């Protein structure tokens, strides 16, 4: 009997289990999943909670509902991965041995890594929306806010769902307009990147969106510390931005257990072959989802395309066959832009987001790099798709590789 152990039962780990269980004979393979949290979060929904569009009920379900039948589930904190010994130690001391390991422990925010960010003001004048408690506290704070300087800051790249901060600022603009407060609110977007959109064609199409919505842009801002008494951000080159309400996207790091186990880079992300997710250190260890150090967006949609490629490769790898399918870094992200509209971008390791139609060339129904109502509905439909299709491992009618059909390859 062989044993596959999957660390993390979030988006990627659950999809891996759902895809592999039917493909690995129950008589030959035991599959075990380990996660510390009883709740599965639909994280894309966190974005909507501060604005009262979703309630917490929309984004939580018991993890147990998504563990495929025939898969063993252990609820425990993973303490150490001893990859040299092919075993994992849990916090209570239990040792779980494996033949193959899939690391899917994701990434989480680390406000403690920036001086002054985590302190008595966290949850009062400093907020995040990357966790459910953060998004809930922010919903309360925003509801009673009478206006002032609202500043959104991305501490450092990479972050999961790199478009979520932009969506937040677009939704904030719409929210304060609807409340009749927009003229009392100054919105500022502070980013370490050199612009809101850094790829030339996306920048050409979307570059003016912030300006159109009256949002100030503060690019190339690399945060050193937060002065929460004076309410200001201070960068490494001593620039300052004042706020009344700070929305922070703190440093994102992989799980500490990855670092402790000597399997991560400086951000605790697992170095893998970007074409097939095999660890660069161990031939029986893979990392999928946000936990891997792939040079593409950390997003559920990426994890979905990635897991399809992973599944076929894993089945070959365990037979001693060379892995064939190559992951191209395909990412496909809806960007909510406020007032019932949204944008869609589709790209991969090599091709930047281009305009056109998706998924059917010339037809759509979605339009790339343009604000449409249909794109907004696509985003809203994603919640249903997530709970009912993705996590169950059901095939979506979308090819995992990025296609040029339907796209317009234009000059900048």
């Amino acid at each position, binding site marked *: 009997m062989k044993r596959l152990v999957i660390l993390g039962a979030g988006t990627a780990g659950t999809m891996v289990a759902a895809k592999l269980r039917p493909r690995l004979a129950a008589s030959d393979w035991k599959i075990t999943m380990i996660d510390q949290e009883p709740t599965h979060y639909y994280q894309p929904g966190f974005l909507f909670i501060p604005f009262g569009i979703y309630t917490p009920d929309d984004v939580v379900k018991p993890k147990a509902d998504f563990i495929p039948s025939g898969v063993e589930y252990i609820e425990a904190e993973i303490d150490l991965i001893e990859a040299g010994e092919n075993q994992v130690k849990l916090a209570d001391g239990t040792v779980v041995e494996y033949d193959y390991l899939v690391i899917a422990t994701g990434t989480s925010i680390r406000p403690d890594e920036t001086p002054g960010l985590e302190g008595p003001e966290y949850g009062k004048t400093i907020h995040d929306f990357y966790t459910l408690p953060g998004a809930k506290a922010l919903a309360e704070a925003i509801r009673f806010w009478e206006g002032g300087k609202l500043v959104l800051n991305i501490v*450092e*790249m990479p972050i999961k769902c*790199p*478009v979520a901060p932009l969506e937040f600022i677009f939704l904030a603009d719409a929210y304060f307009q609807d409340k009749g407060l927009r003229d009392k609110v100054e919105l500022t977007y502070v980013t370490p*990147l*050199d612009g809101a*959109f*850094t*790829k030339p064609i*996306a920048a050409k199409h979307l570059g003016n969106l912030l300006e159109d919505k009256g949002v100030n842009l503060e690019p*190339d801002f*690399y945060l*050193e510390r937060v002065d929460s008494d004076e309410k200001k951000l201070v960068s*490494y*080159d001593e620039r300052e931005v004042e706020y009344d309400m700070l929305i922070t996207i703190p440093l994102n790091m992989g799980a500490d257990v990855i670092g402790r186990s000597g399997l991560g*880079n*400086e*951000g605790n992300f697992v*170095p893998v072959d970007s074409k097939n997710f095999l660890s660069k250190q161990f031939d029986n260890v893979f990392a999928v989802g946000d936990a891997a150090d792939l*040079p593409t*967006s950390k997003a559920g949609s990426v994890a979905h395309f990635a897991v399809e490629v992973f599944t076929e490769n894993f089945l070959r790898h365990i037979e001693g066959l060379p892995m064939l399918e190559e992951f191209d870094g395909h990412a496909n*992200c809806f960007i909510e832009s406020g007032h019932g509209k949204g944008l869609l*971008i589709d*790209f991969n390791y090599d091709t*930047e*987001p281009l305009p056109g139609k998706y998924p059917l060339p010339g037809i759509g129904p979605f339009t790339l790099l343009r604000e449409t109502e249909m794109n907004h509905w696509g985003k809203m439909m994603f919640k249903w798709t997530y709970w009912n299709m993705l996590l169950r491992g059901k095939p979506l009618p979308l090819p995992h590789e990025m296609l040029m059909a339907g796209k317009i390859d234009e000059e900048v």
Partner: protein
Amino acid sequence: MPVTTIGGREVHIDDEGFLTEYDEWSEDLAKELAANIGIPELTEDHLRVIAFLRADYKEQGETATLRRVSAVGGIPTKTLFQLFPKKPARKMSYVSGLPKPAGCI
């Protein structure tokens, strides 16, 4: 890839001027590149950052982030901002003859 002449030598660059061939770089070339972006002199400290970046790239196949230069290379981020003002990530990769760090959309 376009070819250009820097300091009397022909080198391959991308459309933003970053060198595309690892081996076409030299310390003399780095001085020219630095001058192009307003860094008049390459000090020992500059050269230490460049040496780390080039060695790390050779091993990892990608340009180190500011966090990596400070965590693994031991050079504090504050220093990087002093050596390569305003846009250290971009400037240090440019002078080191490496691809610019990956951006976003």
